């Protein structure tokens, strides 16, 4: 486990500590994916988790999102263990896993409406948002007719709607074309500037300059 930090981060003042993992371990099928892993996420910070396929990136994200429990160690949200702060944490978290969370039989608009209802958000201008994401004209086509990249865009549209401070994104750039990747990174940059924090896994290098980027490499272990 080596943490590489670009020199730029030294100058940036660390924001509020949002999320902290301490001594995290995860075991899958008798294989230790990682052990004694500690990490911190401050507001305004982008944490990129790197590692080979099977290194445990998604497992780590699921643990940090409160979906799975670590085999050892603990996650703290604003200095309280996750078990105690779960309702507050879930309200402040936007997790997008590698399944898109988009139902193929529903249209982009219907998926967004469902997602907004599920997160207790008010109505917003979905048409304008979908147009911004390059889905103009496809708003009321069932998502099974869309390409993988377009479905991904529908799924990522919630990042433009959510008020959550912490984003946990598992391979958000998968299947996206160059213009969508830039669009998403721009949105991530805006989020960070507004005091949000992002944890993501990606095999692609980020093309925009993120001042507060911290990289965490998970080594593949046998």
């Amino acid at each position, binding site marked *: 486990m080596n943490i590489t930090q670009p020199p730029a981060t030294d100058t940036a003042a660390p924001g509020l500590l949002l999320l902290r993992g301490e001594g995290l371990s995860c075991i899958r099928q008798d294989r230790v994916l990682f052990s004694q892993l500690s990490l911190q996420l401050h507001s305004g910070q982008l944490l990129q988790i790197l590692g080979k396929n099977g290194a445990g990136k998604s497992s780590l994200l*699921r643990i940090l*999102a*409160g*979906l*799975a*429990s670590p085999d050892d160690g603990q996650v703290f949200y604003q200095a309280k263990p996750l078990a105690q702060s*779960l*309702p507050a944490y*879930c*309200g402040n*978290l936007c*997790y*997008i*896993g*590698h*399944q*898109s*969370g*988009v*139902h*193929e*039989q*529903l249209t982009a608009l*219907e998926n967004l*409406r*469902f*997602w*907004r*209802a*599920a*997160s*207790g958000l008010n109505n917003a201008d979905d048409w304008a948002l979908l147009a911004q994401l390059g889905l103009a004209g496809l708003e009321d086509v*069932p998502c099974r007719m869309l390409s993988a990249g377009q479905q991904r865009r529908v799924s990522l549209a919630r990042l433009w709607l959510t008020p959550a401070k912490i984003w946990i994104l598992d391979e958000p750039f998968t299947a996206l074309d160059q213009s969508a990747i830039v669009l998403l990174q721009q949105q991530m940059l805006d989020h960070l500037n507004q005091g949000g924090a992002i944890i993501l896994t990606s095999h692609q290098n980020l093309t925009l300059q993120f001042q507060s980027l911290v990289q965490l490499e998970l080594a593949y272990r046998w």
Partner: protein
Amino acid sequence: MVNMVFIQRELRLLARQKADWLNPILFFIIVLSLFPLGVGPEPNMLRIIAPGIVWIAALLSVLLASERLFKDDYRNGVIEQLVAGRQSLLAFVLAKTLANWLSTGLPLILLSPVVALLLGLQQPALAAMALTLLLGTPLLSLLSVLGSALTMAADKGGILLALLILPLYIPLLIFASSAIEAASIGLGYQGQLAILLAMLLLALALVPMAVTSALRINVS
């Protein structure tokens, strides 16, 4: 707690995937229309076996509808999203249950006059059948939603689902068919109805919580 957007979504999905609810209804009608052919059209014989076969057909058709309830939402990650967000999982479960009852339970109640005609049931028995279906099908929906939530992650969960859920259907089967039987020989059946209502209320109070836990366990 009850969320109209969720209910609309479920109904819209049912409208787009008609096989999910039409197949069980057709199954119910086919089974019931085969019985007079199989055991012979002797009215007295049919009247004796009618209460049992109506309810067995109802159980199996609801079971048929339940296998795929959560499958799609599990596969495409919607359940995972809801568990991660936590706050609306219960509303989602209630919407699923309501939509399941509207698409499988309600049609059986509406079909009961046709069933009475097929099996030669007379008036008091027909009323008893409709009433037991009215109280019993919501209970069937609740239990099948529970079974479906428990088995959604299993690839071929069908037979596991049947093994889990059919034993829970048995009390319902006993009291519902005994109510119809009592009515057909002119006895009162309020007692059986009261027990069905009690079972329904108990399930209504406990099952949604069990379902949310089952969903949570399945994604973690």
